[in-house]
Structures are given as structure tokens and as C-alpha cells.
């Protein structure tokens, strides 16, 4: 298992030395600690596959260095990096038994047969494949086949990292949670460094301790799922993570806060950062944190209730603030005013962005 370090790594599929905007992956540095569960998340074309291929060695980066446990592997081929990969579709040897599928990577490395049996038994027990070891692999269901693909990575004790590229694509939706649980269990039990690539927010956020959110070749934020949700560092992350998306509202600087249209939002802790920031300002708040009442008061903004979407357990209330749409998520038990309402935006859940980047309070 390895600690993976990326030093100023970037990649451009065109000629080297081109403009930074043309990079499929813009240069950045980051460290993934040994044994962690990580995810690369973003819409298609965001650069996540390029990123994964740089780690596995299928792509050699235009610039920067890749280090495994401090050793520079940038120039090494995939085979020399000891990487195991699980792809979208199970890759198995159909005519071989489950046992021989799992044993294959060890046999290729001339590992002793008794040692092979020991390792295969161990991994099969972990994956609940013990009763299927003698069956031909082709007889198994899609999720069991995907477990074999994973198991072939797990049998090798020298693997630096296991890379999973959209591994739940072929899994029946009702079975997904079981496999998600299995992956988490394995990561917890074996402390293998795992990197999981997906466009699906829920999969990334369920699997990983740390998620890298990417868009248009840029790593927008790396953080725990909770950090991405509660404290998006970029408006893209606020929009991309969570459903409904974060409310993003254009605003301007005001004494002790900001103005949305001609309404003042008091934000004492953020006011100074907002006043000195360069670029267009926006206020971000998730629908969960918008408070609605029928009474005006300090810091309350008058809005019209445009529509109430009753989703059974909660309402999504569409509010109109002088032409700007704001969504609020309110539990069905809570009474709602008619038509006219007042909203409060608690400062601890409110963020200010300048040119899309979050401002730190007190800076």
C-alpha cells in the first residue's frame, strides 16, 4: 500500500507547452495518504479519467511528478507500478473457476501454491465468495463477477493502490448498497489505498473519506463529503453537490453585510472579506438552511411564495425575491405563510463567493 503524492501534475493532450486553458488536467498538487478511500468526481469531460490514468501510468503527465511512498514513478510503466484496477464492466476469465480467477495474478508472479491457496481463501472469505470458489466464473451474477475483479486486486499484497473506474455501472440498483457496504468494509479492514472514479455524486460521497470534485480539467475542491456539502469552496461545488442545488444569488457589498437586489443581508463576520474581494460577488446558501416565517424583523428579507412543491416528507418552497428565485426546504410539519413571507439566512450556513471562489470569513 502506498501514499500517493502528486506534485504540480498537469496534462495536455495537445503539444506540450500550450496554454494552460487547453490542459485536460490543470496542474495541481495533492497527497493521498496510505490506506484512505478517495473519489474523483465530476461530469463527463472533467478530466477525472486523465487523472486516474496518470496514477495508473497509462498516461504520462505533460508536467509534474507522481510519487508512491516518496519514490518517483512518473516515468514507470503501468506494470511496474503495482496498480490493481476494477473497470465498469467485470473483467474475468470466464472459463476459469472463481478460485483460478483470484489466483491468476499470483500465479503470474510465480507465488508458491500453498501461499496462493492461503491468499485466495482469505480474500474469498472477505468477499463472501467461499461457496463459489469451484464454480466457473461465468455462472456468477454481475455483482459477484465485479467482486472477483476486485478480489484479483486484493490477493496481491504488494499492490500500491486499487483504482475503481465507475465500478457499480452494471449493478442492479437494489443491490448497489450491498456492494457499497462491501467496498467500505474492505477498505476499513485491509487499509488499501483506493481511488474511485465516478460521475455519480451519491456513489462518490458514500464511498470516499475524501472526494476531489473536478470540472473542466480543474480540481475544484478536495474535502470530506460533509465539507463539500456544508462548505463548498466554489459555486460549482455548491451546485454540483446536493439536491436541490445551493441557492447562488448575485449580491453587492453593504455596511456590515451584503445587498441582494435592494435588500440587506446582515453578515457581520463576512462583511470585511466581501468589502475587499475582487470580482463579482455571490451569496450561497443551501435550501436546507433558509428559514421562513410570516413576521418581519431584523435581517429578514421580504419575499413572495411562488410555488410549493410537496414531496411527501418535506416541501420545496420556491420564493421570489424581486425576480430572483430562492429555494427553501421545509419539513411538512412546519406551517408556511400564505403568499408573502420573510426569510432569514443564518450566517453560519451562508457563504460569499467572489468570481466563484469562497471567501474565508475574517480575511
Amino acid at each position, binding site marked *: 500500500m502506498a501514499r500517493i503524492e502528486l506534485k504540480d501534475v498537469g496534462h495536455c493532450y495537445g503539444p506540450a507547452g500550450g496554454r494552460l486553458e487547453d490542459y485536460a488536467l490543470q496542474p495541481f498538487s495533492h497527497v493521498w495518504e496510505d490506506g484512505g478511500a478517495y473519489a474523483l468526481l465530476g461530469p463527463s469531460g472533467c478530466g477525472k479519467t486523465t487523472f486516474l490514468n496518470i496514477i495508473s501510468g497509462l498516461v504520462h503527465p505533460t508536467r509534474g511528478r507522481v510519487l508512491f511512498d516518496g519514490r518517483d514513478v512518473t516515468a514507470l510503466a503501468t506494470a511496474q507500478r503495482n496498480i490493481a484496477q476494477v473497470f465498469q464492466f467485470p473483467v474475468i476469465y470466464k472459463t476459469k473457476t472463481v478460485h483460478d480467477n483470484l489466483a491468476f495474478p499470483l500465479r503470474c508472479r510465480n507465488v508458491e501454491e500453498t501461499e496462493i491457496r492461503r491468499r485466495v481463501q482469505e480474500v474469498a472469505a472477505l468477499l463472501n465468495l467461499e461457496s463459489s470458489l469451484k464454480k466457473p466464473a461465468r455462472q456468477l451474477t454481475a455483482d459477484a463477477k465485479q467482486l472477483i475483479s476486485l478480489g484479483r486486486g486484493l490477493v496481491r499484497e504488494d499492490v500500491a493502490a486499487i483504482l475503481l473506474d465507475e465500478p457499480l455501472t452494471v449493478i442492479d*440498483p437494489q443491490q448497489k448498497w450491498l456492494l*457499497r*457496504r462491501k467496498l467500505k*468494509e474492505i477498505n476499513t479492514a485491509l487499509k488499501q489505498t483506493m481511488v474511485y472514479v465516478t460521475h*455519480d455524486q*451519491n456513489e462518490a*460521497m458514500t464511498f470516499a473519506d475524501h472526494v476531489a470534485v473536478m470540472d473542466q480539467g480543474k480540481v475544484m475542491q478536495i474535502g*470530506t*463529503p460533509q465539507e463539500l456539502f456544508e462548505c463548498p469552496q466554489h459555486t460549482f461545488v455548491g451546485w454540483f453537490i446536493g439536491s*436541490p442545488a445551493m441557492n447562488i444569488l448575485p449580491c453587492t457589498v453593504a455596511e456590515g453585510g451584503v445587498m441582494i437586489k435592494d435588500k440587506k443581508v446582515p453578515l457581520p463576520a463576512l462583511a470585511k472579506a466581501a468589502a475587499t474581494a475582487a470580482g463579482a460577488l455571490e451569496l450561497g446558501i443551501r435550501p436546507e438552511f433558509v428559514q421562513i416565517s410570516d413576521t418581519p424583523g431584523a435581517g429578514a428579507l421580504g419575499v413572495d411564495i411562488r410555488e410549493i412543491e410537496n414531496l411527501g416528507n418535506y416541501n420545496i418552497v420556491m420564493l421570489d425575491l424581486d425576480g430572483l428565485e430562492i429555494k427553501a426546504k421545509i419539513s411538512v410539519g412546519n406551517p408556511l405563510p400564505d403568499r408573502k413571507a420573510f426569510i432569514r439566512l443564518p450566517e453560519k450556513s451562508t457563504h460569499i463567493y467572489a468570481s466563484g471562489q469562497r471567501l474565508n470569513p475574517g480575511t
Partner: protein
Amino acid sequence: MSLILEAVGSMAEDQMHLADINLTFEKGAFYVVLGATLAGKTSLLRLLSGLDQPTSGAITMDGRNIVEVPVWKRRVSMVYQQFINYPHLDVRANIAFPLQRAGLPGDEIDARINEVTALLGIGELLRRRPGELSGGQQQRVALARSLVKNADLLLLDEPLVNLDYKLREQLRPEFRSLFGNNTSAIIVYSTTEPLEALMLGGRIIILDEGRVLQTGDVHEAFHNPACETVARVFNDPPMNMISADVAGERIILGDGLVLPRSGHLAGLPPGPCRIGIRANDLNLEQSAADDMELAAEVQLSEVNGSETYIHIHHNEVSWVVREDGVHSYALGSGIRIRFNPGRLFAFSSADGRLLAAPDNLVSGSAVMEG
């Protein structure tokens, strides 16, 4: 205009696809068919379209038997899961195709295309080919081609299932206003997702294993599920269930918890029953003085949009808790769960019928079919 199915059944190769379907569809109304994969949703839509014929029963339109009328003679259009467009034609030609086939004059075609593309926000894309469009744009084109025909019957078979959740988020409200304002057609929309059904509104038809379990207003059905299966199908995550025994003034849950037989549960007959509780009604914090409490172990915490589903295990019972926001819990860690007896559902253990539902929400009785 009304389309009526009476005692309709559909078999194929000795497999029952649909059985004893009795439904009435009215012009100007919007219907959502909700059911799990293989519940019979696509089979039902294919019968309505005329692509398939029932093996028993009658389908009539305004009193006229239409079973024998071929698809091409019907005024019907269908949108599929997989967006289907002609790859060699540009967007405009794709949408114009059914109108040209129908022999409409050019200025009429132009007018209708302008109207429908403005409605769906694809007016700027008319000269592009499908291959140059995103998934969401392609599905809008397929939808535009279906809408432009002004068919009497518009069928949509899980049209959002292949789109990522940000696109679904964007298209659902558009669909709702589009279908909510319909006055001229019968629109039938199928989905596996309870949230989508609630968001789109209208009338609901809940299917399971080829049978209709419940019909009626979507919100009323949500609050008064006719039976245990509906309670499962119409909640995501499915409603948590546990066997219980009603004895004297007490209700003893299968995991050993004891509740008073009071409030909306006072009328439960003695003997065994099934108790249901929504993931949403299991809480981490105490909310009322008479909350019940249990200690459980975390099996997995899953993130779903802006919520966390915590799978828990407690005395042989596996339940799911829904929590607002994104949180993480270590596998195997201990957790305390609270719920209020006022939020429990009760179902018959003999036939699964609803016996009691929390009573503070939507009133009115559920219609149970069959």
C-alpha cells in the same frame, strides 16, 4: 375522451405480465405509473399505445373497442428511456419528421416547431445533429418530436432514468409545468422513483408484479398507502417494516419494544400485525416526550443528494434512517434512534391491507383495487 381498460390481462410465453387491470384515463389529466423494475410499467404503456395487444379483457376509447386498431392509425406518441433521434437529421428535421409524414403544410410545421422548441428551450439547437448534443438536450428533442404531433395519448416510459441527477433536477419542474397545463391529451408517465411521482403530481397508478395496487391522487396515496407493498414501493428508501403483536393495551414489536395501544393505533384488532415507519420518521434527536428509543448498529451510511441514509441493524431488524444533510458514520458504530408512536403505520399481517395511518396529514380514504 376517455380510455378504459376492463379486466385486461397480458401473457407472453406463459409469463403473466399484467393481470386484471381496470383503469380509466381521462382527457386533460396526467397519470404517473409508479412501480419497481419489472412491475409491468412498460407492458402497460405498450398496451395503451397499441404496440401490444392484451390476451384478455377490453380496451375502449369513448366506448369504441380499439384493441384491433393498429398503432399507425392511432394518435399516440411515446418517449422512451433511451432517447431516440435520427442521427443523420438535424434537430429541426427530427422534430418535423412526424408532421411531414402526416402531410402538414410547411407554414403549419414551422409554427408548431417554433412553439414546441421555445417551450423546451431548444430553439437555439435547430441546426445541430443529435450527436452534438448533451443527453438532456437529446431527450428534449425526442420529447419535442412527441409533443409536436399533438397526439391524443402521450406516453413517457421512464424518460429521465438515463440522465444524471443534475439534469433530472432541471427537467422535472419543466415536465411538471408542461404536463400540468395539458388540457387536450391523456398523458401517462412511468417511473420507479417515488420522489419523481410526488414532484410531478397528478393521478397515481401503483403497479406491482403486474397488478394495480392503488390509484388516486398522488399525495393522498402517499399518506394512505393501501397496503404494505404500496408503502414499500412509494417510499425511497422503502418504508421500514416490523412484525408486531397487539395484546391488551400494548403493542409488542418484534424487536422487543413495547408501545401503548393508543392514539390512531387504539383501534387495532388484537393479534399479529405489521408495523411500518418511514425512514424520515426515524430520528437521531428526541422530538417529543413520548418518543420511543432504541440502540442500533450502523451497517452503512449512504449519501443521497442532500440527505444521508443510515442503514441500521437492531435485534435482527434492518431499518433505514433518513437524516438531512451529509454525515458519515463508521461501519459497526453504535447509534441511538428515536421515533414517535404517532408516526407509525399498521398493516394486516394476513393480507397486507392498511389498518392505521398517522392522522394529522391528508385526510380521505385510499382506494384499493382488486
